């Protein structure tokens, strides 16, 4: 059913937690990991609404790939409070090639499962997902 080319299976928990983030705003961020042995995408970490963007960047490993969803709150030029849901494909240059390939080929299928992502971003090092980049993509 699941193989590296057509995408890993998605554990039901991922979709449930994502819907909770979207509707009830119970989490600030969710980090997903691909478990190769079980051949599926599972939830690795959940972030409290009180946590900040820096806590989120700290929870991503520096040399392994991950998928992440972050709920970004900001104030627009007209003084409106808005929020955007970001999907970040974290694929650092220092990670192993096999890891990058598996995450890249499974990304499309995974994204289709998460309905409601507003902005997608791929980051290959911490500078590509800096707060200024997020802010500029939010508009």
């Amino acid at each position, binding site marked *: 059913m699941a193989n590296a080319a057509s995408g890993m299976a998605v554990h039901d928990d991922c979709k449930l937690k994502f819907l909770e983030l979207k509707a009830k705003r119970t989490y600030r961020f969710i980090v997903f990991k691909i478990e190769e042995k079980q051949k599926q995408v599972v939830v690795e970490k959940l972030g409290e609404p009180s946590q900040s963007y820096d806590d989120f960047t700290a929870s991503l490993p520096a040399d392994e790939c991950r998928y992440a969803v972050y709920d970004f709150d900001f104030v627009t030029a007209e003084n409106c409070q808005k929020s955007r849901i970001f999907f970040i494909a974290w694929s650092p240059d220092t990670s192993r090639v096999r890891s990058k390939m598996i995450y890249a080929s499974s990304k499309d299928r995974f994204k289709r499962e998460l309905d409601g992502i507003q902005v997608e971003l791929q980051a290959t*090092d*911490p*500078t590509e997902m800096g*707060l200024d980049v997020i802010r500029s993509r939010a508009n």
Partner: protein
Amino acid sequence: MPELAETYACVPSTERGRGILISGDPKSNKVLYTNGRSVIILDLNNPLNVSVYGEHAYPATVARFSPNGEWVASADVSGTVRIWGAYNDHVLKKEFKVLSGRIDDLQWSPDGMRIVACGDGKGKSLVRAFMWDSGTNVGEFDGHSRRVLSCAFKPTRPFRIVTCGEDFLVNFYEGPPFKFKQSHRDHANFVNCVRYSPDGSKFISVSSDKKGIIFDGKTAEKIGELSSEDPHKGSIYAASWSPEGKQVLTVSADKTAKVWDISEDGSGKLKKTLTCSGSGGVDDMLVGCRWQNDHLVTVSLGGTISIFSASNLEKSPLQLSGHMKNITSLAVLKSDPKCVLSSSYDGLIVKWVQGLGYSGKLQRKENSQIKCFAAAEEEIVTSGFDNKIWRISLHGDQCGDGDSVDIGSQPKDLSLALLSPELALVTTDSGVVMLRCTKVVSTINLGFAVTASVVAPDGSEAIVGGQDGKLHVFCIVGDSLKEEAVLEKHRGAITVIRYSPDFSMFASGDANREAIVWDRVSREVKLKNMLYHTARINCLAWSPNNSMVATGSLDTCVIIYEVDKPASSRMTIKGAHLGGVYALAFTDEHSVVSSGEDACVRVWKLTPQ
């Protein structure tokens, strides 16, 4: 945010055997010239007030203000003319591909509606005149068979265009629409420049046959010549009329500029010969001139701009100079932090003083090309492409005698132990050479391809970086190196390593755009993720109080990080130097000096956040 405080401009790029054309603003005292891909607008009253336009994709050749002073038309070697606003942001109005080869001269018509451009067009289109806003042709220009070096538009009606070129001809066209009328073959060599007097009654053509001929402005009849008593002894490269139209300034390869009185009947009598003091070599040949209101500006082959006063020809001129080529290193003298020394690869070292600008060239006895250079208290050490290292003592502005030593292979990087400057470490392709004064004390083959190195201020330690991105820390024991540690974090060849002034940290930059700050004692990473550049890092500098690191890169940006804050809170200077930033230095806590491929030196002031 960093702000530009001062720019020390480059000088016009010159070529031996050809004149250059500089032009000026009819309203203010600004002159325009080109260097590389930039067009520089220099204010003669205040040489520190410089504006640079860097939008050409090819080396720019000539630029002119429009008669109303609002627009500038500039041309480059690909045959493209760009018309842009003279003030503020230099917004582009129009761009036209005018000729198929390089454009040598460009003139506006006096009403600002038409532009004539001439140059080298592979036989077919050597001259073209077009409307400034639509680009439609306004004439047929045949009659030249070789490169057309200069053109002029008659400043009063009826409109005429004169062109001159390498085929020794001076051609006269009537119009609009412009058509060939007459041709003159009075010169015996390339005709370098042709210019109309401001009232349109005469025009003068000057040539490499050392003569200048004056023609009637309307009929193109030859009416006179510049007098042959005390003429120029070399090719005359350029001419410029005075604003009243009674005098002409000519410059020549015989290193003098002459002012001639032109009488009504068209003959020219020599009024004064102006010479500039110089070393007397080829660099003093004068290649460009411009009579701008009260100022007579002449440019020499070496790039020195001399400004004479027209009302007082006896006064010695104000001389400005700068770099013509890529500035590869900068050094700030500890004894005088306002003074900056910059060196370019062609061997020129220039001294700049903050607040004043150009302060002088360092005359060295040997003018070889410089690859890297370092300055300590009283001496400068330079390494060249000829495998030699020179130590030259520095007394104020003069260079004393220097001693040289040949190190056997080409030096790649040079570093001085600041507290005991006799020790210098030079890296070559495969190893390092240690020098005490000018003696090679040891040549150590390290076995890996070496790219950058630095020696500690007290001479006890050295760090060598390799092509593979590894940093090797060595302890200097007597005259040999003992390897202490190998640090692996970089993912590209190391390009620069620098110790902090208090010796507690060091920072390294690599070709993969990353910079890392390390703690020296523990050799642990102190600040990482400094990955904000988009091309290789060329240079790195520490602030005197060890709190900031600045990195300059080929992507033309300078980024300043604070060591105590995370890398993401950085200050970026975008577009600091067209073509890449090659050298950086801090002069005090809040000022950074940078230099790069565009041959300019810029001083930036950092306002604390």
